[in-house]
């Protein structure tokens, strides 16, 4: 099952990357993620491993994943090592001055005929969870991209 979500955010790539590049924040980012523990390798970057679970229906499904691409402000991709077979990717591309196109791709596959059925039954929940993640990335990136106005000196008057 493959889910792809695309959106445009009025923030530079740097701000969007800042919102996604800390995997320890993903439980706060993506609804339904119940577990995201570092499980080996570097803390971030290619080779970092995490135990990840997402609540879908009656179970927290997922497994051990490994970051396989960590191209700053461009691509962040992971694949499963153990558990449910899955691949995911955050893809950031310029969409004009201070605007970024963000693509979130997620593919997963359970074994067997019942697995085929289960994947399709689970898809709306997984899609909703990913959509919530994309919206949270938008909020965080916009917050990051806002440059605070310079502070007025004490004596300054309007």
């Amino acid at each position, binding site marked *: 099952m493959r889910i792809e979500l695309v959106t445009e955010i009025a923030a530079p790539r740097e701000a969007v990357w800042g919102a996604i590049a800390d995997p320890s924040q993903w439980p706060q980012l993506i609804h339904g993620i119940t*577990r995201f523990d570092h499980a080996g390798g570097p803390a971030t970057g290619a080779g970092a491993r995490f135990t990840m*679970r997402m609540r879908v*229906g*009656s*179970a*927290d499904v997922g497994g051990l994943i490994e970051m396989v691409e960590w191209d700053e402000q461009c691509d962040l991709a992971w694949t499963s090592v*153990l558990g449910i077979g899955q691949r995911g990717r955050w893809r950031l591309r310029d969409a004009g001055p201070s605007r970024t196109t963000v693509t979130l791709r997620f593919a997963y596959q359970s074994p*067997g005929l019942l697995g085929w*059925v289960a994947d399709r039954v*689970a898809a709306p929940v997984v899609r909703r969870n990913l959509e919530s993640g994309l919206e949270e990335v938008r909020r965080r990136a916009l917050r990051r991209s806002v440059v605070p106005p310079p502070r007025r000196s004490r004596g300054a008057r309007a």
Partner: protein
Amino acid sequence: MIPSLARLVQGSVPTADLDDRDPDYIRDNLPGLWLLATIWHRAEVRGLEHIPEQGPVLLVGNHSGGNASPDTLIFTLAFSAWFGVERRFHQLAHNLVVSYPGIGAMLRRFGTVAASPENARRALRGGAAVLVYPGGDWEVSRPSWQSARIDFGGRRGFLRLALEEKVPVVPVVSIGGQETALFLSRGERLARLLRLDRAFRLKTLPISLAAPWGLNVGDLLSHIPLPAKITIQCLPAIDLEEWFGPNPNVDDVYESVVAQMQEALTRLAAERRFPLVG
């Protein structure tokens, strides 16, 4: 006739080969369990984070639902999805269950072994998580209106085992299983009359109204469980020595563990508004 049938069953109880458990088989069957749990039983399993991340642990559950108990399958799904199928996990079941043609072989690949202290000890010494239902056939056959009652029938062996093996105990409390059929009576007198206790270690011969049979005596051919909502709650792990000191009185520990489980079950029952619907 019953004694000879008993000998036949006893002879067909497979020795507990813990290596019968097959992680690839479990992985392949998790989607089917997920569909059953999610669509049919709208199951909810909470508190898995209370189970120690690694090492042997004794998971102690209340048992519901007759011979088609959904609790075990749902908990197996939740455990395997949370920790991964690679973590060793065994469930103890009545001799008759692991001896059923077809189903018995399937359950053994899921890690089910015949309930006995020796089998549990071997699994724990192998570093596995072991799920036991001390109430066994006694509790699983209680009338549906006693759904929110923990009833281990005074069986304390699981605590002696945990103390001897020095493993933590995690209570696993579930509700909803007793609504998968209308259980009317344990049928203890009938079981005694037929000498099932001596022949098959069965203290009960449950009488229920269950699909597709209607009146169902014994539940030997199992039944189709009604789609009751199942909720399972894992409680914080109990280190028996830390909580009760070295060489604690087993009776005191039993009272305390059962009281904790009863309190949790009462809370779960209070959350339910309607039978079946949850």
